[in-house]
């Protein structure tokens, strides 16, 4: 069996499961945010469930429209806060302590190898990076899982993505995943698992793995996953001492297909509007001027991403026409940004440094685009209107490209900087 099949078998009390099979899986952790949780709470009440099945397994994070952007968002957060208090939930994060959920949960040690996790947020697939089965669902699914502790899932077939070769300078997890989506398309892994493996993945640090699994959904995948190894163990030890049971794919596991990727050829990538699959080498997009650059989000808001951006921005000023918004994804990342002197680099360069929020990624607040404006962003979606006006444009890239572009006022790689 594959790692995904093994986790689903174990969580549904079966020795074996097969792709296509429906299972009722026992869920180790379930997640909601200020957009999806209020609807889930409404449905939970209609189920007459009373108490949640296990208050230690429910995680609610106020991260999307927070700090509350208007009265309506404040009301949504209030619904979530009151529910968390009434249900005595162990994991509720409010403004100040909240971070972007998919950066926060791994950092808090709440997701571990071998676990089964669902979240009412499509980027829940991020946690596959630690060797967990993790997938996005809707609000009613979250409600039913809060009530019963279980969620219905169809066992997905897996695609084996094998990455070989040494990465070029500045190329990271974001470039690998944008390139991959460019190769297989936004529905290339629909209803399937993307299992990332190979020597390049083995050499990739956890931050890059989280970025890759985060965007598995952008290829339509149910989950992205990486077999736990020494790097997983190192990361887990740094965040928690609690026990967990890792599982890995069998050597004779069956895959629906295998895709080989030669990473030595991969250049810094940018995905052009309005689909993540429009990935191109940055050198092909050099003529595109930008109005804004956003560095942050569940995809690239970790300290490793901000270090890359700061390395490029140190001693430089951003282009006079460009607004640069840097958003550390969690309070811990924010604190680290200050301690390591990165905050000073960003502010000296002319950036706005924000408290953790999903904000601009979904055109919510803290950096919404006007008609005709263009942004390069380390976020995950470049759909029509994603960051603001329906006639604005988003170009997806990693932190190195976002930082270099902010300096030059056009889409650029760090190697082009004087």
């Amino acid at each position, binding site marked *: 069996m594959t790692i995904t099949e093994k986790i689903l078998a174990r969580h549904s009390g079966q020795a074996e499961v097969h792709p296509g099979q429906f299972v009722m899986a026992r869920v180790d952790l379930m997640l909601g945010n200020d957009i999806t949780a209020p609807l889930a709470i409404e449905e939970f009440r209609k189920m007459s469930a009373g108490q949640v099945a296990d208050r230690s397994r429910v995680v609610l994070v106020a991260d999307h429209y927070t700090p509350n952007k208007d009265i309506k968002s404040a009301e949504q957060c209030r619904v979530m806060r009151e529910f968390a208090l009434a249900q005595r939930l162990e994991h509720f994060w409010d403004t100040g302590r909240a971070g972007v959920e998919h950066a926060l949960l791994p950092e808090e040690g709440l997701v571990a190898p071998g676990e089964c996790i669902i979240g009412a947020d499509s980027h829940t697939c991020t946690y596959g990076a630690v060797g967990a089965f993790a997938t996005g669902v*809707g*609000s009613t699914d979250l*409600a039913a899982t809060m009530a019963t502790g279980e969620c219905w899932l169809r066992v997905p077939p897996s695609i084996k993505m094998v990455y070989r070769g040494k990465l070029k300078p500045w190329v990271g997890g974001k470039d690998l995943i944008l390139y991959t989506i460019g190769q297989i398309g936004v*529905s290339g892994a629909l209803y399937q698992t993307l299992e990332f493996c190979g020597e390049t993945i083995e050499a990739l640090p956890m931050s890059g793995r989280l970025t890759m699994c985060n965007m598995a959904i952008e290829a339509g995948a149910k989950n992205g996953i990486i077999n736990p190894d020494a790097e997983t163990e190192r990361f887990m030890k740094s965040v928690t001492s609690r026990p967990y049971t890792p599982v890995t794919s069998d050597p004779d596991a069956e895959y629906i297909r295998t895709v080989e990727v030669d990473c030595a050829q991969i250049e810094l990538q940018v995905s052009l509007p309005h689909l993540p699959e429009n990935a191109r080498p940055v050198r092909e997009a050099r003529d595109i001027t930008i109005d804004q650059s956003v560095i942050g989000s569940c995809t690239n808001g970790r300290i490793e991403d901000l270090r890359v951006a700061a390395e490029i921005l140190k001693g430089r000023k951003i282009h006079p026409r460009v607004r640069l918004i840097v958003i550390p994804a969690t309070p811990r990342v924010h604190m680290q940004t200050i301690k390591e002197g990165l905050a000073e680099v960003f502010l000296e360069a002319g950036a706005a440094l924000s408290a953790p929020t999903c904000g601009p990624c979904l055109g919510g607040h803290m950096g919404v685009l006007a008609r005709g404006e263009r942004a390069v962003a380390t976020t995950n979606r470049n*759909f029509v*209107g994603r960051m603001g006006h329906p006639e604005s444009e988003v170009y997806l890239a990693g932190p190195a490209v976002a930082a270099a572009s902010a300096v030059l006022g056009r889409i650029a790689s760090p190697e082009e900087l004087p």
Partner: protein
Amino acid sequence: MSVLRGRVHRYGDHVNTDVIIPARYLNTSDAAELAAHCMEDIDQEFVKRVKPGDIIVADENFGCGSSREQAPLAIKTAGVSCVIAVSFARIFFRNAINIGLPVLVSAEAARETRAGDELAVDLATGRIENTTQNRSYQAEPFPEFLQEIIAAGGLTEYTKQRLAQG
């Protein structure tokens, strides 16, 4: 289950949840308010044009992107009786089943149907009749497990019954 009859609103590939209901309206869970902005970033005239019972027909990967259940909820509340597509993004598909918005997979029906056609859809049999073009199609059947959720009227009622049975 009854036969649904309605006029077709036709869309292409990869219609994502950001255009079905832009995130700028997600600061509320009010279904009527969400429905007032349904399809706004792909088709500004949709909410003016849509009539109760109308049917959305699309190509591949309908509902891709975010997990927001507000997307099928906005479509359902706008009066759309069902969505037919070549394929659906998985979270949208399960959200639609869970909230009781009928979704049918039929590549042939989706590809041959044009905007403004009149369809009659028999949910019990999966039969799709295009009365404008005088053609008929058979949608893919739902797996048995999903039929139980559909029969209960959605996941909320299904879960309520499960909990009541202990």
